[in-house]
Structures are given as structure tokens and as C-alpha cells.
């Protein structure tokens, strides 16, 4: 594990750098021996996964370090073959059912059932249950989530589910109520700064405080991104300087440029140019909600308060509709066009005011 992100990942609940109080609670909970299903949620880069792995390690010891990656195949009722990659140890299995798109229900049903139905043969194993770790639960289809409900109750004796999601809003209330929710907030700027300093110290580098602060800010309180940025900075230029160039993810820059195009001119021609850029983003597998978010954040910078509310409302509505459909380009472009329409009207009226 040579990237700093992986290299300096805390491996036990005791070693966690922030939200220490929560870590303490978790430790207590595990030491009591049993715990309900968990739903860990929080923004990306907050350390959800790290925490989950710490919990599992706390449960089973070092045995979970011996990971194996497997490809499992499932068959849908319509005889379509699905392949999904799982990461598992003897004690737990990690899977991201949303990898298979709309067929995730089959994966959830088959995989969780087969894992849950097999009892731990080894009696001296520390725990009687296995852990099934499902990531990106908020991206599961409704079907899959419904399928999950019953399984969760039925096999509670033999397995514990740990669900990992970015937000609970798209997790069914039925599932939320069956789980102990653990919120992992994004680390504060100072938390990130501390961690960056710590890493540099261990690497034997000197990091100016200003740079650390800037890194933390540009990362958007995403620790993973902050560490990656730090490493990229180090490759780019060392020794560090306070105002050195920080690499931002390309897609962010790209979305920002797209948004500025939207603001600069409102015409069907521009719309066509923007469409090709949206296609570019989509083919790079950037999640559409991130595109929505990025566009909105950039656009809103140029608006007054009244307009901000209007546009945010529109964006929310359109994004919601996008999740109800399947062709995200329609919705993205609809939002762009709508923004253009609103913005043009706003500009025109304000110009009239001048005249």
C-alpha cells in the first residue's frame, strides 16, 4: 500500500485521528460482544470505510487482513450473467451491489443469503456471526433495498450487516430503522491539517502550515482527496512552498468551466457546446449528482439571493427527476437550459432597470 492514503490509514479504533469520542463508543459497543446492524453514513472522504474496517478488526483481530478478491457470478431471472467483485476474509465479505446497476437485487438476495445461511463452523472463532459489508447502499434500487429488509431480520443470528452510505436520504426508512445509524461527519479543516502534518512528519517532509490549510480547503473537507493532493504536490514540487500550485481533480475544473460557459452566453448554440461537455463528463463515469452539484455551486456564485433560491430549487427538482429516469443527459441539459432561461430573464430585467 504505497499511496499515502492507504499507507497511513489507521488500522484500529484506538488509532483514529478525529471523532475520537465516537471511536470510543464504538469500541465499547464491540467489547460488549454484540451489536445490531450498522448504517454508517457521512460524506465521502470522511473515513467511513476506515472506521468500518477498524470495527471489523476490533471484532475478529488481524484475521481480516488476509483479504482475497473474488469475482462472483450471479444469474438474473432473465438468464443474464452478472459478475461482481467481492473482497472477503474469513470473517467478512465486502461487496458493492450497485456495481451491477439495476440488477443489484439479485446480488443482495443471493449473496447475503448464502453468506448469512452458512454458520461459522469453527467454534473457537471469536464471534458467532459474520459481517457483510455493503457499500454505496444509497445507490441501491428500491427493489434491492426491499429485498434487504427481510434478510436483515431473518439472519440476524448469523450475520451482521454493515451498510455504508453517503447519505441516508435515499435509504429506505424501513432499513434505517433496522440499523444503528452511525454518522461520520467530514473532518474539520483543522483535523485535516493535523493529519497532513502528521503524514509529512512520518515521511520526513516539512509542510508549511499555509499550504496545509489551503490543501484542506480545496479538498472540500475530503480527507482522502486532501492526502492525495498532498502527495501530488510532493511529486510536483518539493520542498513545499506556501503558495504552490495545488492539483485539483480535472473533472471539477471541467465542470467549473462548463458552468462559466452557461453564465457567459445563453443560446441554443451554447447549449450544444455544453452538451458535448456533459457527454464528456458522463463518459468519464462521473456520477451525475456530482455534476449537478458542481454546476449549481458554480452558477450560483453569479446570482443574487433571490435567484439563488430559485435556481437551487430548480436544481433540486431536476436532480430528483433524474433519479426517476435513466437518461441523465436529458435532465442535465434541461437544468442547463432552465438556468439559462432564468438567468437571461434576470439579466434582461436588470438591463431594463438601467435603461
Amino acid at each position, binding site marked *: 500500500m504505497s*499511496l499515502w492514503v492507504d499507507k497511513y490509514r489507521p488500522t484500529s479504533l484506538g488509532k483514529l485521528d478525529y471523532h475520537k469520542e465516537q471511536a470510543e463508543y464504538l469500541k465499547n459497543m464491540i467489547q460488549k460482544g454484540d451489536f445490531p446492524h450498522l448504517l454508517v453514513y457521512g460524506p465521502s472522504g470522511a473515513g467511513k470505510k476506515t472506521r468500518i474496517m477498524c470495527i471489523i478488526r476490533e471484532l475478529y483481530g488481524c484475521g481480516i487482513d488476509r483479504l482475497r478478491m473474488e469475482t462472483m457470478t450471479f444469474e438474473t431471472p432473465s438468464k443474464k450473467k452478472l459478475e461482481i467483485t467481492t473482497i472477503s476474509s474469513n470473517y467478512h465479505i465486502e461487496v458493492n451491489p450497485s456495481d451491477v446497476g439495476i440488477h443489484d437485487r439479485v446480488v443482495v438476495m443471493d449473496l447475503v443469503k448464502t453468506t448469512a445461511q452458512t454458520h461459522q463452523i469453527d467454534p473457537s472463532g471469536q464471534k458467532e456471526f459474520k459481517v457483510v459489508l455493503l457499500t454505496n447502499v444509497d445507490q441501491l434500487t428500491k427493489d434491492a433495498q426491499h429485498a434487504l429488509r427481510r434478510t436483515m431480520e431473518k439472519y440476524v443470528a448469523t450475520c451482521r450487516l454493515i451498510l455504508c452510505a453517503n447519505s441516508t436520504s435515499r435509504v429506505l426508512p424501513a432499513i434505517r430503522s433496522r440499523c444503528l445509524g452511525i454518522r461520520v461527519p467530514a473532518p474539520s479543516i483543522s483535523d485535516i491539517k493535523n493529519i497532513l502534518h502528521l503524514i509529512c512528519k512520518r515521511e520526513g517532509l516539512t509542510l508549511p502550515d499555509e499550504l496545509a490549510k489551503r490543501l484542506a480547503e480545496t479538498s472540500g473537507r475530503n480527507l482522502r482527496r486532501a492526502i492525495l493532493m498532498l502527495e501530488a504536490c510532493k511529486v510536483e514540487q518539493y520542498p513545499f512552498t506556501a503558495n504552490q500550485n495545488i492539483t485539483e481533480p480535472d473533472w471539477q475544473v471541467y465542470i467549473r468551466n462548463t458552468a462559466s460557459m452557461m453564465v457567459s452566453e445563453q443560446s441554443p448554440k451554447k447549449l450544444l457546446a455544453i452538451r458535448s461537455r456533459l457527454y464528456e463528463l458522463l463518459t468519464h463515469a462521473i456520477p451525475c449528482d456530482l455534476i449537478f452539484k458542481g454546476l449549481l455551486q458554480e452558477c450560483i456564485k453569479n446570482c443574487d439571493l433571490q435567484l439563488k433560491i430559485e435556481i437551487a430549487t430548480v436544481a433540486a427538482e431536476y436532480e430528483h427527476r433524474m433519479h426517476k429516469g435513466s437518461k441523465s443527459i436529458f435532465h442535465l*441539459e*434541461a437544468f442547463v437550459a432552465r438556468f439559462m432561461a432564468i438567468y437571461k430573464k434576470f439579466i434582461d430585467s436588470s438591463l431594463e432597470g438601467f435603461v
Partner: protein
Amino acid sequence: MNSEFPDPNEEFDLVHEEEYEILKEIEEFEKKKDTESGKIENSQEEQKRDKLNISRPNVYEELNAFTSNKYNKLCIPSTSKVIPSTNNDNCDTDVTKKRHYDELFGDISDMLDTNDLADIQEPKDKKPRWDEPQEIIKAVLDAREKFNEYSRGVSVNSKYIKDKRESISLRVPHWNFVALTRPRDAQRIYLRVKNDEQSKIKTNTHSISNLLSVPYSQLKTEAEEILITIVQNVKRASCETSHLPVTKTLEDDELWVDKYRPRSYIELLSDESVNRQLLHWIKLWDKTFAEKPFQELDSKGFPIQRIALLSGPPGLGKTTLAHLVAKHAGYNVVEINASDERSPDAFRQVLLASTQMKAVIGNDPRPNCLVLDEIDGAPTASIDLLLKFVQGKLIPKGKKDKTKTDKHVCHRPVICICNELYTPSLRALRVTAFIISVPEVSATKLADRLMEVSRKEKLKVNSDALLRLVEISGCDIRSCIGALQYMGGVNLGDNLSFALKDSRKGLFDSWKQILKIPVNRNGILPLSERVQLVLRTVQNGESEKLAQGIFHNYPEICSDKMNYVALCLKWFQFFDEILFLVGSLQTWSVMPYLNYAFVFWHLYFAKARNIKLSYPSIVYEMNQKHAKNIGILTTVQRNSGHNKIILTVDIAPFLPDLLSPQLRTVSGHLHSDKEKNDINRLVNVLIDFGLTFIQEKNFDERYDYKLDPNIFEIGIFPDCKYRRTLIYAVKQIIVQELEAERLRRVENAIKSMTKSAQNKKSITSESITNHNVTTNSATSDAKICNNATSKPNALEQSKKLQMETKDIKYKDFFGRTITVNQGEQKKLDKESIKSRNFLTKNSVWYKYKEGFSNAVRRNVKMKDLL
């Protein structure tokens, strides 16, 4: 021959010599008469008829008895003399009828030899069997039937029509007859008896084979020749009378479509520019035949686009255009259409035959031009074959010799014709071919032509009706002329629905219908009609494609009013939601609402002016690209264990930076510590993510290392940031390091395995953790990873592991088994140096053997490489 005669006959001959002479005289007399009447009688036939006499002996006798002629006097005694003898014979041979019958044929075959002899023998033959049973009659009838067949085969009628004289003969004729004696001069007359059975009688092949000895066939051929000439004469005569009306009716039945097909280039109805385009293209091929300078040719003197692809809706005259243009340019048209076999094999044959050979024998040795009609229906394999062939990549079957492939370059123009240009099977062809889309013929031009046709056919049609017809048929020339012909112009105005084509339209037409405001003579149609029209267009289905096309094309068309656009796009959202409901939840009940979106788009987007539409191919391209990128992500995910979203959003954007440190292009050992660290880190990251550099040839024939899987493609967006890329030499160093590191990891894994096997007596929990750490570091290395991770962790399970290790034969990087010496194992320490020893002692060696020269060969130890 004579010697073969049966003895009794010879005796008989001798006895009746006198009579024979008289008979001869009669014969000669008759012969003279025959020649005089110009009748062509075959002596062989004659003889056969002679035999027939046998069947009618009574009549013969009676007639004879009545006559008192001079001839008769001669005849009567002869017959009367003969009769008793036959009777005698009959008495003798009554028991063996069969033998007689056979003998009879034997006689006949002999008799056939010479006329004279036959004539002489005739009575003799007659007499012995003159009251003989039916078999003989039948046999003779069969024989006659067989003969008649020749004449009947050609024309039965003609025979009966023949000269009346042929029904009456003075000689014994070859047909069925009744013999009569003319009382006036006692002349024997043979009257024709029409044989009703003629058609019923089947030929007896057995008896025929008996009859057909050599002389018979000779005679027969003579007869045949004569008959044939007669029949031909008759035929010619009948042709002269019947031919004219037949051809006339044919002409009347001819389809007007064919009748009024343009015969020359000038008569073509289609757009002149299109015609010229095709003609120009085909003229480019002239270079192959004549030395003319052209610009659009490639190095070998062929047009760059070797195939012309004509596309357009049916009935526009594409086929006619291709044929005429090819003819106009002096080519011989070879057409392959959907009715021909178009499997790849058959296709190949036709291709080669038509493009590489030319008619040598024919009177105009013009080069061929291949016209592939209805190519959109051909199998994709055939089209691939065509493309390969045209590009000269087709290697002839059986011939592996590459030098000869040059012969198989296409030397002749190939024109393909299709209706639907965007058929998936034509995808490859579209790229290379010279595409000419044949537009609709202008309505007035077509109406003029129709008018001309109706004038020629003397139909009374008014031009308004014709225009209407043209409109309804959608400018389909063929259907127009067809309609015109079969409706006869009489009630063209009333029955217009007859000419309606199947209303199903292509995507482009539908798009046009939606995005263009329909106009008739009175201006823009009323709103309600427009809505109806759009709804009708959309009803055909394929709404998804239709919407896709509108989405693709609207920014070019619509007005600048952004709030309209925003409104319309809301309908796209609606459309998508409905489609999702239908597609994933099978809620078909909401399906009909889809169509109303089109109405809305029509109302807001449609323009009155002419619009240019393009196919939304970008959707397909994007899907392809997306699938490719997802593939990359999946592979990386499998190797690194990172989530796809995390990979795309967080890791991939930084990887290009992380993987391109500043390195000098010097050889490895000259690098500074920092640089070495950088390389080390780089290699580790590459291994963690399962990435490698793969050597590839660039477009400009230079080698370059490409990342595989190329995760950079996901992280990097166009025109965002300038990035430093590693130069070739640095990449080379990295690749070397990468390989070395891989080996090292393999080795470590092996070491840790053997170590754990060795430590069976004193396993401490600490050693297990150590062990874990080492195996952990090697997880990314696939093979070893599997071995290592399959081991259980717990204390009691390590025993099981030891059992395993005894069985396992470790394989090194090259797939050779490594035999682990137990004695050596004890000496092994935990340090890696020791493990190197282990490796080197165990017959891992590497031979550097470049250039096959012993001068540079030396043994390189693994130790040196690591």
C-alpha cells in the same frame, strides 16, 4: 445374309421364282408411280406396311377376288398359290407360335437390308402368317407407333394437315390403311385410317430393340431427316402466322414501369447533381483504362473511395440510375441483388468473377461494373468481405502467397444500392464508401413524365390528378407509373387510396415531419391538423429513437428563446421518466402519454424553412466510450479493491500527477536517492493498482509505452491542465523496475510460505503477524496472493498448512517447479539476502542470448538482476 435365311424359305424361293419376277415388275411399276407423284416414300416404311397387309389378309383377298384386272391376274394366282402354303406352314408351326413370331422379326431384320429382296420376300412373309394371331399385329403396331413418334414428337397436327395425297396411296403406305381396289382399273388404293389409339399405345421398348438393328437405324435417320425438314417447313409457316399476334400481346402486357424506364442518361428523372456525382465518380475509374490525370485518385490510380453507395427510399430510380450511368460510362453492368445468393462464399465468387475478368468472347468486350442492389439486406459477413476485397486485403483462398495478393485489388467500380443508409450492417461500408443519397424527384418533374406516359398510352388524365398521385405516393416513380397503368387513368381521381404506399417511414422522415411545420397551398396547416399529423407520425413506434433524434437536432433548429427550450427540455425529462417506468417497472399503461411530448416539441421547435438533420450517432459513440471506461475502472477496481466512484472521483484525477515524477533520463544507477525513491514509489503504486506499461507502436511508427489499463483516460479531461508526461526512456526504466519488483514480490511470497512451513515447531503469535504483514504486502500479486491468502490464520490451522506445503510444488516465475530442499531450508533466515541464495541455488537461471552469437553469451544470475 441369304445364308441366314431359313431353309424352307429358300426352298420356297426357288419354287416361286416365277411369281417373284412378276411381283418385281409390279413393284417397279409402283415405284415409278411414286416418283411421279413426288411422294417421298421410305422403302423401309413401305416394308413395314407390307407386313401390315398381314393383318388385313381377308380384305386383300376379297378385293383380289373381285378384280379382273391384268395385274390382278398376275396377283391372284400368286396369292392363291401362296395361301395354301401358309396354311401348311401354320399347321406345321401351330404348336410353337412364339417361335414364328421370333422368326418373323428375324426375317424382317434381314429383309430390311435390300429393297429388292424384301419385295421378293414380301408375299412369302405375308402368307405363312396371314391369319396369325393378334400378337403380330400388335408388334407391328408398336413398331409403327414408335416410328410415328418421330413425326408426332415434332407436331402431330402437321402430319394430319399434310397433303391430301398422303391419305391415299397407291403403294402400301406406312400408315394405317384400308386397302381398296379401284373397280375402274383394278388399281389398289390404300386409304388412311385414322388411328385413335395412337396416343394410347405405349411403345414396347423390347420389341423395338429387336427391331432396331443397324440397317434399320440407317433408314430411320434418312426418314427423320425428311420429316424434320417437313416439320420445319410447317413450323416456319405456323410461326409466320402466329408470331405476330403473340408478340403484340406481350407488348401490351409489359409493365409500363419497364416500358418507360429511361433508356439513356438524359432521360433520367433523378436530380441532375446526383446523376453527375455518380457519373463523375465512375469516370474516375477511366484512369484504370486510359491515362488521364485525375486528382481524387490514390497512388495506384484508383479513386480513393472505391465503392459508391446510393441510398434513398424505394422507387426513386436508384437501380436505373446505376445501370444507366454505368452504361453511359461504357461499362458492362453485372448486377447482384437480394434474389441472388449472398452468403460470403457465393459473394466472393461473384466478386472475383465480375471484377477481375471480362468478357473475351462477346462482341463488345467492355469492362464490368458491379452493381450490388439491395445491399442493406446482405449479411454483414458479405459486406465485410466486400470491404476487404475493395481494400485489397482479401487473401485468396488456398493461396497464402502474399506477393500475389496484389492481383486481388478491386479494379472495377462497385456501386452499392440501399434503402436504409443506417442499417447496422452497413456501418463499416458507410465509412469507406462514397455516399450519394438520392433525393426525392421533384413532384412537377415526375408529373410531367407521367403526363408523357399517359399521352403515349392514350390515356386521358388531367394533370391535377397526376400531381395528387405523385404527392400521395411520396414521389415514388415506380408506384406512380404502376398506379397509372392499373387504374387506367379512368377514375384516377376517385381511387387514389390504391396508390398509397405502406405509410411506415424512415427515421429521418419522421424527424422531419416533427421538426418542420407542414405547409400546403393555403399556408400553414391549422393547429389541430398539425397535432394529428405529429401523432400519426409517432404512432409507428420507435419513440425512443425519435426522441433521441429530436434531442440531437433541436439546438440547430429552434429559436433563441431559452424559456421555450427549457420548457421543451422539461418534456424530455417527462419522456425519460415515462420510459423508465415502462422499461424497468413494466408500467405499460403510461406508454401512450409519450406521444404527447412529440406534439409539444413540434409546436415549439418546428420551423417552416428547410432543415438539415443529422443522425444522433453521438449517443452510440458515447455509450461505447462509457463502456470502455467502465471496463478500465472494473479492472483497476479488481486489482486495487477501491470502489469505482472513489476511483473516478478521487484517485484517478491524481494518478497522472502521482505517476509522473521528474526523472532524469539517465541509466538507473546514476539516479539520485530521491529519484530512486520516486521510482520505487511509482513502481509500488503501479503494482498496487495493477497497472503496467505496454509497449505499443504509435501512428508515426514509433514505440511508446502505454498504461494498461489506461486509467489516465478517466482522470484526464481535455483542455484542463497541462501535464507532464514521462518520456520514453524514463518509462523504459520504470518498466524494468516494475518487472524486477514483481519478481521480488513473488520471491517474498515464496519465502514467507517456506518460512511458515519451516517454523512448524515454534510458532509464536508474533511470527504469524509478521507473516501476515509480508503476505499482505503481496496481495496485489495475483498468483501468490491466492496461495498466501488461502492459508487460514488461526493457530490450529497452521498445522493444516504444513500438510499443504508438503504437497505443493512451488512454481517460479517461469513456470518451473522449485524443489525445496529440507536441509537448505533450515539454513534460511528471515532476511531477504538469504532468500536470494535460496533462489540462486535452486536452478533459476537466465540466459542472455541475443544475436545468436556465442561472443555475447554469458550467464546472468538472478542475483544480478534483482
